[in-house]
């Protein structure tokens, strides 16, 4: 039997009962479609988490006071509130560590902020002119805090767009206005461009002031009378040097803080890549979860195929008998029924990919990030063909084994 004839025979057999064929195929379409869509949404989530984390800075290494954290989340009461990192540490990193493009200190604390009768409660970050470089911040209007303002401890502030919207009204011009932090007046010199993000990580709901001002007038100095910082953020010159920079910073700070064992260090050095990989680990678990739910529906679709093929074999027993009587071999019958199953799953697979792709595009429209990858399409395609073979095998074998005499007599 020729391949073209095999396809023609199978095609015409499938079109005899169009409703049944369509319904059976629907099982595969939904199965493959949901696998594609779910994986797309999962990977989209992974992508957007990575993008969000990257938006907080490029090649970022963050040093915070407090105990070293292991993988995962360790709840530690003192984390971030310890005062062991100082401006002097920041200066040492700036001058002694190589392969870095910028370093900036941060001293943050939440304050009630008021302006013209409105008020908000947000994070006030004392920092210097390197902040925009390290943290990927760009300006909407005005300019960021400059070195002169830090040196002179001028009471100027740069506010995030959310703060501007809350205090002065949405989209209003805040430059030159005055805000009060802890009853102290600050002149607004700039507004940062929106970055997105939410909750504690909201990059837009922040107020920046010179670190000298925050050390001198707001937060104060630590027990030893040294101005301290809550974070030191370092930007490595490229992604490949991240680990090297991280090691240098750790060594330097251990020497400065006279710590011999890294396990008992009073600071933590975190690499942005670690944060990204931890977060995308969560997202990939989420992807696997979604995909396995979808895979179950694919399995159910496959069982539907098998069910239909078994019914077909019973219904067409006489036809099988006839085909054998006119000279079809076992292999001919076997291939014909297998081809029918594969045509079903293959066509269902193609339609399922279109359906899944469409779903992911619609999800994108509703703001759910989703990415359809070539790998997931190839996988879905392979799986659908495999389902045809696996679930078509048994019915086809049963058909090929029918005794022609009994098959011809079958009522």
């Amino acid at each position, binding site marked *: *039997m*020729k391949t073209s004839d095999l396809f023609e025979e199978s095609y*015409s057999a499938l079109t005899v009962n169009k409703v049944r064929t369509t319904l059976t195929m629907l099982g595969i379409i939904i199965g493959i479609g949901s696998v594609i869509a779910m994986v797309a949404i999962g990977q989209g989530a992974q992508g957007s988490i990575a993008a969000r984390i990257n938006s907080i800075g490029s090649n970022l290494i963050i040093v915070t006071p407090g105990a070293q954290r292991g993988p995962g989340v360790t709840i530690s009461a003192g984390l971030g509130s310890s005062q062991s990192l100082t401006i002097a540490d920041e200066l040492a990193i700036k001058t002694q560590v190589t392969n870095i493009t910028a370093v900036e200190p941060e001293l943050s604390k939440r304050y009630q902020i008021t302006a013209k009768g409105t008020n908000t409660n947000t994070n006030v970050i004392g920092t210097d002119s390197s902040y925009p470089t390290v943290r990927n911040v760009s300006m909407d209007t005005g300019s960021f805090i400059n070195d002169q303002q830090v040196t002179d401890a001028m009471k100027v502030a740069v506010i995030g767009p959310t703060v501007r919207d809350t205090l002065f009204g949405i989209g209003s011009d805040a430059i030159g206005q005055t805000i009060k932090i802890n009853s102290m007046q600050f002149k607004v010199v700039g507004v940062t461009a929106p970055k997105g993000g939410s909750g504690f990580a909201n990059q837009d709901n922040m107020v920046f002031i010179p670190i000298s001002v925050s050390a001198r007038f707001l937060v104060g100095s630590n027990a030893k009378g040294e101005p301290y910082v809550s974070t030191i953020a370092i930007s490595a010159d490229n992604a490949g040097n991240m680990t090297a920079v991280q090691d240098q910073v750790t060594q330097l700070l251990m020497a400065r803080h006279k710590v011999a064992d890294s396990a008992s260090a009073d600071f933590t050095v975190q690499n942005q890549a670690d944060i990204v990989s931890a977060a995308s680990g969560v997202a990939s678990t989420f992807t696997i979860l979604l995909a396995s739910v979808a895979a179950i529906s694919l399995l159910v679709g496959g069982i539907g195929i098998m069910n239909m093929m078994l019914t077909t074999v019973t219904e067409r027993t*006489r036809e099988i008998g006839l085909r054998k009587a*006119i*000279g*079809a*071999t076992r292999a001919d019958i076997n291939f014909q029924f297998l081809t029918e199953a594969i045509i079903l799953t293959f066509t269902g697979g193609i339609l399922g990919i279109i359906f899944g792709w469409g779903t992911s595009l619609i999800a994108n429209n509703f703001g759910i990030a989703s990415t359809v990858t070539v790998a997931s399409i190839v996988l879905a395609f392979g799986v659908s063909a495999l389902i045809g073979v696996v679930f078509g095998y048994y019915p086809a074998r049963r058909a090929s084994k029918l005794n*022609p*005499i009994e098959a011809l007599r079958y009522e």
Partner: protein
Amino acid sequence: MIECKDIYKSYFNGGVETKVLKDISFAIKDGEFVAIMGPSGSGKSTLMHILGALDTPTSGTYLLDEHDLSKMPDDELATIRRTKIGFVFQAFNLLARSTVIRNVALPLVYANVPKTEREKIAAKALLQTGLEESRFQNLSNQLSGGQMQRVAIARSLVNNPSLLLADEPTGNLDTNTGEIVLSTFQALNKQGRTIVLITHEMDVAMHAKRIILIRDGQILSDKINENQVIANPKKDIDGN
């Protein structure tokens, strides 16, 4: 050329042996028109299955064109059926919702004949059975019983078989339509086709040139039919 020698066939059912054919021996030369007649349960269907290479005898030999089919494995029997045997069944066994031409060409699909060639051969066979050309593209289930059986006969001819086996071909037809079908067989026999007709009706058997009578699995008589009836259908109800 068919030669059966000492053919026995037994079935085992729950350890009990049922002898269906006992010591069957006969020969059929090319160009003969033989009716194998017997009541139900006589073993004529089993004999037909053996002659048609659908089954093999328990013992004895069956030669078809010098091929010994008695011990042949399944796939080789399939090849014999594909190349040497044409079947006509009582229930026609056409593929429903397929065109007449596709039904007739079906055996050639398994013989790897290209599609255009197939349809040419099928059309020729259909004309031999007297089905009008306007019906060729009809679906098989749109035909009358007589037309369906002629399509089935055409299908049995496309592989140019050495043996045409008809199993109660008039069983599902009224007398006049049956006559049409029998006249088709007689015409084909006149062209030199070897035909074996299996029936339980004397009227039908009388159309053959030779009658083998079977009862209880044994040949009761094997005679030349001196009074062969020539099929004479009345005006065709299909208008043919």
